[in-house]
């Protein structure tokens, strides 16, 4: 029985890390499809940005550790403990993405090296989102141990991630209209699907309780949070879509897409805080 704000660092982690990972993948795909070498190099330089978003999330999660000095023992649980799998996936992604960014500064960085490296980093990124989504499969916590948990995490990542990726592509002056439109479309679909899953999750809580508490009593504001998620999500997607218009000034484009990014991250964060408030074991 902790309040959601005790777990705020974890809410921040599960907002930023999956979204930053999807943003990295969005950038990587743009880089893989880019034929103009100059433009590809500009994207390479900005690969540090989604990497940083994930890193900030990862650091936020580490503040949740009471004794960081013992953190290396976490690797002893790989394969057995979902938390260990998550940390390993995060370290693998950060290593591959970070080393790619640094290696890309080499004067001779042929595509034959760059592309497989990026594909590997993207695979590690997908594994990170998957492992994060499965980290809450705890048999004794019925409010978390449902298919809604991984689904919510994926849709959250696919809501904020593509627009963050679009913002970084705008920064790299690589805003190709059609690709940007695809990114915004992914966010819109994830918003719709995510809102449906959140609502289903909220409805499912009516039947969950232990001896002390009904699950729905833990999150009196869940309905409001879902409504906020939907409205902020719509506003964020609209901002991102408006940033795609080619006749806008660079400042206006960045401001619109930046606002969209903030709105979507806030939309996700609000639902993540509710998620942690929902902790309830089958016992006490």
């Amino acid at each position, binding site marked *: *029985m902790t309040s959601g704000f005790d777990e705020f660092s974890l809410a921040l982690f599960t907002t930023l890390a999956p979204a930053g990972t999807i943003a990295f993948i969005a950038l990587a795909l743009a880089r893989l499809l880019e034929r103009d070498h100059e433009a590809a190099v500009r994207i390479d330089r900005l690969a540090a940005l989604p990497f940083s978003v994930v890193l900030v999330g990862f650091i936020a999660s580490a503040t*949740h*550790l*009471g*004794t*960081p000095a*013992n*953190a290396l*023992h*976490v690797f*002893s*649980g790989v394969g*057995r*403990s*979902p*938390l*260990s799998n998550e*940390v390993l996936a995060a370290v693998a992604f950060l290593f591959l993405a970070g080393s790619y960014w640094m290696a890309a500064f080499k004067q001779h960085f042929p595509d034959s090296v760059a592309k497989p490296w990026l594909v590997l980093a993207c695979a590690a990124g997908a594994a990170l989102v998957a492992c994060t989504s499965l980290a809450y499969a*705890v*048999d*004794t*916590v019925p409010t978390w141990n449902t298919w809604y948990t991984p689904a919510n995490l994926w849709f959250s990542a696919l809501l904020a991630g593509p627009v963050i990726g679009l913002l970084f592509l705008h920064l790299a002056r690589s805003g190709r209209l059609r690709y940007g439109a695809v990114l915004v479309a992914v966010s819109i679909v994830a918003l719709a699907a995510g809102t449906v899953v959140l609502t289903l999750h909220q409805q499912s809580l009516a039947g969950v*309780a*232990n*001896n*002390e508490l009904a699950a729905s009593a833990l999150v009196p504001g869940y309905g409001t949070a879902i409504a906020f998620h939907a409205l902020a999500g719509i506003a964020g997607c609209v901002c991102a879509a408006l940033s795609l218009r080619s006749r806008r000034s660079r400042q206006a484009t960045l401001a619109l897409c930046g606002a969209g990014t903030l709105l979507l991250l806030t939309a996700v964060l609000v639902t993540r805080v509710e998620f942690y408030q929902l*902790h309830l*074991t*089958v*016992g*006490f």
Partner: protein
Amino acid sequence: MAQYGFYFDSTRCTGCKTCEMACKDYKDLPATIAFRKVYDYEGGSWTDAGDGIYTTDTFAYHVSLACNHCAMPACMAKCPSGAIEKDGKTGLVHIDQEKCTGVGACVTSCPYNVPVLDDAKKAQKCDGCADRVAEGLNPICVDACPVRALEWGDIEELRAAHTGTVAGIAPMPSPDETTPSIAINPCPAAKEPGDTTGAIANEKEVTNVPA
């Protein structure tokens, strides 16, 4: 491998909490932490028949619980750093402080509200007084109980010695979750796990809220 565990006689327990205090004293625990907790489970109501006769189905009983040293400990399964180990000889579950990261996965997953994070952000819990057990003694709570409601030993031997024991009564969860090494003699008022007719009456006392 032997599996040690507690026998708890709920027909004897008066809810005096001597077990809890003896443990706090022996383990030198701060005010906010108790390894053994006594849950007061109460419920029921009065019915007015309208002719001056009232009937009641109220009940109240106590459940004294420490770590159940489960056969399938949820805390051990979820600990990312492998800090929680089950002793090969006694089946006792203990936390290796050198490996604990304080991430709290055990606190989150234990359905018995057993592990807690201390001020140093390390997970702590009942170790079955492993040092005393190694000397052939009982855990301190067992010896402290003034009504002999607690016993200690090989859990299968305890179950054989006391017929009719169960591994859970309300407000405990169903024993299917973690297979707790506990044998309880249920008092007549005891409800099944999952019961919704009663409630924990000393909620603040048992959920690590400072007094």
